[in-house]
């Protein structure tokens, strides 16, 4: 069954049409990469899934139920979220950041969840837990953000260009950590990227977006064969040889 599906999603920002009748679906355990240039609507689509953005038309279903009929706060607590710049809370320690969602859910073992998540994200909790975000490198901060997203054990993870701000080596390491994490936990994920190579490396499925529409949606393995036109252009730009 599809854990996430968007049906004919439409979103308008004044004169511009950010989403022009978009439909996607992500099966449980899959990882969908939304690929496109800036302004293609990929971030808007991602944010519609946990109701950070409300659609003007169409509908979004999470776990088979329309998100409009779910409580936004409870919905968001059940979905992991990572944004490009990490968005760590600066005056909280890394452990406090990582324990955020279990804490919001009122779990007595919130700190343990945070510690486990930090470990899973590749950071030694004893070493990093008591530090503040600004004392960490960019790559380490992004790992804390990933730990925070998975600490409560969500079945769904949304990520908005999670690795874009990292240098090439750090990015590859972070991608590998994420791939391992997702597969071992069996999490369903949807993430935004402008990099076809990253999509191919990390995702099981790829949706190519342009001007608010999906131009191609295929399993990652079939992408290279089926890419034509704009999708092929993007592949080429990302240095993936056809």
């Amino acid at each position: 069954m599809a854990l996430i599906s968007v049906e004919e999603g439409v979103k308008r920002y004044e004169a511009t049409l950010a989403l022009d009748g978009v439909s996607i679906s992500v099966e449980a355990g899959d990882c969908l990469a939304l690929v496109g240039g800036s302004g293609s609507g990929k971030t808007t689509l991602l944010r519609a899934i946990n109701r950070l953005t409300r659609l003007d038309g169409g509908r979004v279903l999470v776990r088979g139920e329309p998100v409009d009929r779910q409580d936004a706060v409870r919905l968001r607590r059940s979905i992991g979220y990572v944004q490009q710049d990490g968005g760590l809370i600066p005056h909280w320690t890394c452990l406090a950041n990582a324990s955020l969602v279990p804490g919001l859910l009122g779990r007595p073992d919130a700190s343990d969840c945070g510690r486990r998540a930090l470990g899973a994200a590749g950071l030694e909790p004893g070493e990093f837990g008591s530090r503040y975000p600004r004392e960490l490198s960019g790559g380490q901060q992004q790992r804390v953000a990933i730990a925070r997203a998975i600490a409560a054990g969500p079945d769904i993870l949304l990520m908005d260009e999670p690795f874009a701000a990292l240098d090439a080596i750090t990015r590859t390491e972070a991608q590998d950590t994420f791939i391992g994490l997702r597969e071992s936990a069996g999490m369903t994920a949807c993430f935004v990227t402008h990099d076809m190579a990253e999509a191919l490396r990390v995702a099981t499925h790829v949706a190519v977006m342009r001007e608010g529409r999906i131009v191609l949606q295929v399993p990652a393995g079939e992408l290279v064969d089926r890419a034509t036109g704009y999708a092929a252009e993007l592949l080429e730009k990302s240095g993936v040889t056809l």
Partner: protein
Amino acid sequence: MSGLRAAAARVSWALALCALSAAVVPLDAQDRDRPILVASKPFAESYLLAEVFAQFLEANGFAVERRPGFGMTELLMQAMIAGEIDVYPEYTGTGLAAVLGQTASGGSAAVFGRVSEEYETRWGIRWLPPLGFENTYAIAMRREAADSLGVRALSGLTAIASDLVGGFSPDFIGRDDGLDGLATAYGIEFRETRSLLQAVKYQAIEEGAVDVIDAYSTDGAISRYDLTVLADDRGFFPPYDAAPLASRAFMQERPEAILVLTRLGGRIDVAAMRRANERVEVEGRPVAEVAAELLAEVGLGGGSVEEASESSGAAVRDAERPVLSALPRRMWENRSELVRQVFRHLLLVVASLGAAMVVAVPTGVVLERRRALAGTTLRVAGILQTIPSIALLAFMIPVFGIGAVPAVVALFLYSLLPILRNTYTGIIEAAPNAVEAGRALGMTEWQLLARIRLPLAAPVIMAGIRTAAVINVGTATLAAFIGAGGLGDPIVAGLALSDPVMILSGAVPAAVLALLVDWGLSGAELLVAPKGVAEGRR
């Protein structure tokens, strides 16, 4: 040191009583035992006469509260009508021209009759019997200048005024029986006219910065600065007989006290008054002491001079000493009064600042949610900020009367903008990425505010509070002009008496207080700064 502690204890009691009485005054305005409020205008003779009234009332068993240098004519009239003060010394000519807007005709008796009737029918305010001397406006020049120009009378100015610079008190410039009327009556047009406070006028003419000034005929400084008074040869100035002015409530509630004040009628002649003025203005002696002497000289004195000067807490003034060495001594002698003024000052600042925090911080938070309103709201607060302090204080009088309440309201309005603006920008600039991530992970708006935005904005909000506090400490000195007390009292009195030591005895503590408040609140800023955030965020 136990003496000081006892004094401090007395002060705090006095302060508590003061606050209490301020709170209950409207309720027990009918109370016959309340002290009689004696006010004056801010110049030496008015101080002296008010002190004469006060001492004479006290000698006859009445409790008195002094409001020396309370304000100029308009302010005193408003306070009289509102029943905020009971009695102050006024001049018939001023009442006729400045208050009633009429021109003089007839002599002293006719003018006194006219003002008595008009004040009584319009406001129920009573002119008590004139004290026995006239203090008319005197237009004066340096003797040597008058001699070399050959000017003896005001009509002599007509031809040469275009070469002269006039320096007049704001009061004189602004009123019908003042400069405008004079210029019309004599056809005088000065090359330039400057507005000068009484405190600096004589120095200005001595230095030659101005050529012609307005003085008072009983002025002790006329001989001191070697000035010539030009004769009013066309009879422009109306008679200015000095008399106590009594409010309606005072008349109705305290007939025995009124009776006491009528006994001053006709007792003080112009020679006695000029001598007394000289003692204050030229010899630099304390008002209370000179007033007691004046009462004794006219045969109404009771208690000894020492007792009188002790009772008003005035210190012996030492004009020979340089200002800087006289200042610490004066402040030490007046320490109990000074402590009371500092507490009163802090009370004004804390009350206004507290109210501003209660209003502005939540408003700043709400504005972040309703950004469409933010521009307008901040603009309104900004406009409040641009109103000159004195003007804002004056606006408060018709609404809130005089005293601490209007001062606190005005200071409150001044405090709004810095706190509001810093709260608003502090909340907006508080790690927007972290707020966005927190929201995406299911924090409620309230949790975002309480756990991310407010803690991060706290140092910025505190900086706004600090700005407002420092502004308030300064502005509160001006509140003395509307009778709010505090460290402005010695400044206002010192300006009126041309006493730089007295001015500094208010100004220096006010400056020190501002620095201390600034220092203390910068510490508070560091205290509220959340950990883990880059230092030096301001």
